[in-house]
């Protein structure tokens, strides 16, 4: 086995209670790297097309990358892969913390779970030994309580855990698992999948060592990365105040959506109020800083909130996405309510982005008289009403009253209630994240057409524009395809390695290719990165094509792309040519814009996609 891998994958069938180990081959590792790269390959091969995401044939994977569990800086992220019960297509999300590295040190590169258990269970993986255990007594416990429960039950105080809370047990579509008590692979409904399988948690303990090809080179690379990080202003800002350091400025610049994407930060929110949603304000509760595995930056922080109307006690600093979703998007500068919502989402296991955005949708519907106070169980859901936001989120977490509908997301609620569709801000039914395509227009293509819709962590042109590094006028949509594709393939590899994108922001360019070489021992240059990234992208895309999803089925809400354009503020007049951006990308990717099919010669040239060629073009 090449370096950087444990060499084994675990396949669990909860219907018949079987566990099967399978070797992770060099071929799979070299060509699909890890994370959602390997995840896409395995699910494509093993999960039947057309499977019900919440049914027994549905498979969910928890997949590490070659950096996890090693000394490589920023190597703390693992991927969760499945078919989304929201979009009906491919879904991956990733999360930091310690769960991924611990799984790897316990002897597994990946765990794939299929079937449905007849009673609640958890998976206990302890240094290479995996067991399915009864979780009936743990059903109803929140994601932090169960961590403590299982430490006692297993006698392993250092175990790491990924668990669903009550929202996942309710099979609410916005549910997600939480690992390490506060980190979330949040997007696309993975908590609902776990709940549908009655899989309450995966607990792991690993004391092994992950072999790597060149430990000395990893140390040298870490030194280089550490040096550039220390000199980077964004490195200093994230290290001191986390991603929330940027929340106020993003609300003013137009990066953060305001008032369900219909407002203007500087006009509707104001300079004084935007500061209340940032870390500079909230860090008065900070008790200590923390970091994910092998992260020298440390963007996380623990808070202790014992005052005010929501004394949640020990909690965590809200990330940028969370602070924006429960802040500027709702015109809410009630800091206490934002901290409370963040804690509730962690305990119950619900995606903060989609939860905030679903409330934003309901808020606009209420403000426009489309939803009544009675329909919202008597809650006066006016703009900026922090207490009402907490109250409605509580109902979503509990699956009670209107919350039982809203916990499935805004698109589900609009369909269920038969109204309010005009105020949805979604991509293929998934709520948009907190970066506005009118500010970084490349995101319009990514949100609408990435195989996992509505994501801000998929690279592409938008990532360059968000970083203020655009190569041409960002509102000039001509000739964008090649660069958009190249930047996307780059991120496919980065994510599949299990590296953090914030690490890349503060690292020397191209350093992660060198990390792959040092970890695995294989040569990996820019051309390898492009081809490998293209392979992973096409694997994920092919999953959707096989499901019968065509480009015309992929939607994005009109307001988010400036149709109509805002009339005031920094994004006034911006209306994105989404069609041209998409056609440019499809042309560069060699994907047919009508059927979505990748060209046969493209798949043949990329290699290792034989099953895709067979499915799409015959033998």
């Amino acid at each position, binding site marked *: 086995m090449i370096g950087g891998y444990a060499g084994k994958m675990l396949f669990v069938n909860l219907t018949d209670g079987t566990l099967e180990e399978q070797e992770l081959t060099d071929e799979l590792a070299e060509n699909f790297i890890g994370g959602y790269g390997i995840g896409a390959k395995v699910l494509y091969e093993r999960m039947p097309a057309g499977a019900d995401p919440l049914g027994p044939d549905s498979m969910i994977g928890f997949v590490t990358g070659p950096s996890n569990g090693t000394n490589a800086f920023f190597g703390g992220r693992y991927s969760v892969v499945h078919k989304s019960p929201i979009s009906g297509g491919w879904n991956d999300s990733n999360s930091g913390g310690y769960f991924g590295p611990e799984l790897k040190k316990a002897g597994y590169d990946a765990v794939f779970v299929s079937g449905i258990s007849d009673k609640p269970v958890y998976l206990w993986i302890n240094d290479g030994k995996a067991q399915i255990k009864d979780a009936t007594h743990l059903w109803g416990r929140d994601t932090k309580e169960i961590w403590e429960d299982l430490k006692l039950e297993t006698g392993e105080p250092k175990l790491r855990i990924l668990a669903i809370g009550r929202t996942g047990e309710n099979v609410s579509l916005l549910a997600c698992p939480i690992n390490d008590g506060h980190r979330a692979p949040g997007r696309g409904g993975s908590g609902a999948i776990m709940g549908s399988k009655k899989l309450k948690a995966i607990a792991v303990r690993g004391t092994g060592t992950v072999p790597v090809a060149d430990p000395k080179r990893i140390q040298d690379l870490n030194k280089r990365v550490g040096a550039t990080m220390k000199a980077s*202003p964004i490195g200093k800002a994230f290290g001191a105040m986390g991603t929330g350091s940027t929340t106020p400025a993003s609300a003013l610049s137009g990066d953060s959506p305001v008032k369900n994407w219909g407002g203007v930060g500087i006009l509707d929110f104001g300079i004084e109020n935007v500061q209340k949603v940032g870390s500079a304000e909230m860090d008065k509760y900070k008790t200590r800083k923390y970091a994910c595995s092998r992260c020298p930056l440390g963007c996380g922080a623990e808070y202790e909130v014992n005052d005010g109307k929501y004394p949640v006690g020990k909690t965590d600093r809200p990330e940028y*996405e969370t602070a924006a979703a429960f802040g500027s998007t709702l015109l809410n500068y009630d800091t206490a309510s934002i901290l409370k919502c963040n804690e509730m989402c962690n305990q119950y296991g619900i995606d903060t982005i989609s939860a905030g955005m679903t409330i934003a949708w309901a808020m606009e519907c209420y403000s426009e008289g489309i939803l009544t106070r009675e329909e919202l169980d008597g809650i006066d859901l006016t703009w900026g009403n922090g207490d009402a936001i907490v109250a409605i989120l509580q109902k979503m977490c509990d699956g009670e009253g209107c919350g039982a509908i809203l916990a499935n997301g805004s698109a589900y609620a609009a369909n269920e209630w038969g109204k309010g569709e005009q105020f949805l801000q979604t991509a293929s039914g998934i709520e948009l994240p907190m970066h506005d395509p009118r500010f970084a227009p490349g995101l319009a293509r990514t949100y609408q057409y990435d195989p996992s819709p509505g994501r*801000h962590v998929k690279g592409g042109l938008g990532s360059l524009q968000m970083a203020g590094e655009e190569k041409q006028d960002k509102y000039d949509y001509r000739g964008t395809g090649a660069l958009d594709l190249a930047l996307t393939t780059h991120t496919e590899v980065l994510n599949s390695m299990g590296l953090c994108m914030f690490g890349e922001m503060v690292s020397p360019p191209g350093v992660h290719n060198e990390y792959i070489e040092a970890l695995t021992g294989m040569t990996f240059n820019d051309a390898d990165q492009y081809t490998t990234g293209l392979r992973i992208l096409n694997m994920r895309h092919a999953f959707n094509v096989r499901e019968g999803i065509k480009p015309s089925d992929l939607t994005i809400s009109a307001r988010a792309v400036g149709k109509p354009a805002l009339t005031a503020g920094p994004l006034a007049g911006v209306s994105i040519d989404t069609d041209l951006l998409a056609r440019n990308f499809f042309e560069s990717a060699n994907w047919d814009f009508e059927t979505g099919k990748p060209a046969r010669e493209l798949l043949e040239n990329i290699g290792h996609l034989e099953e895709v060629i067979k499915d799409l073009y015959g033998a």
Partner: protein
Amino acid sequence: MIIHYYYFGVPIPSLTHEKQAVEIPSGTTIDQLMKVIGETIEDSASEFLNKASFLVNKMGAKREAVLKDGDEVVILYPIGGG
């Protein structure tokens, strides 16, 4: 003419929210203003002015925009969110 300006959300301690004023010739663009301001701050901090985005009187503005007497310029850190 007099232009008022301040920084917002810039993770460099010396670049603060405090409003400042500068006198510049009429017809000056934002890009030219950044060169004037860049002379007054340390080199490591001035690098970011090449990437910053701007609000002028609460509206978005490009570097080529010509400023008018009394304009208020907000200089924003270019990196979005997290």
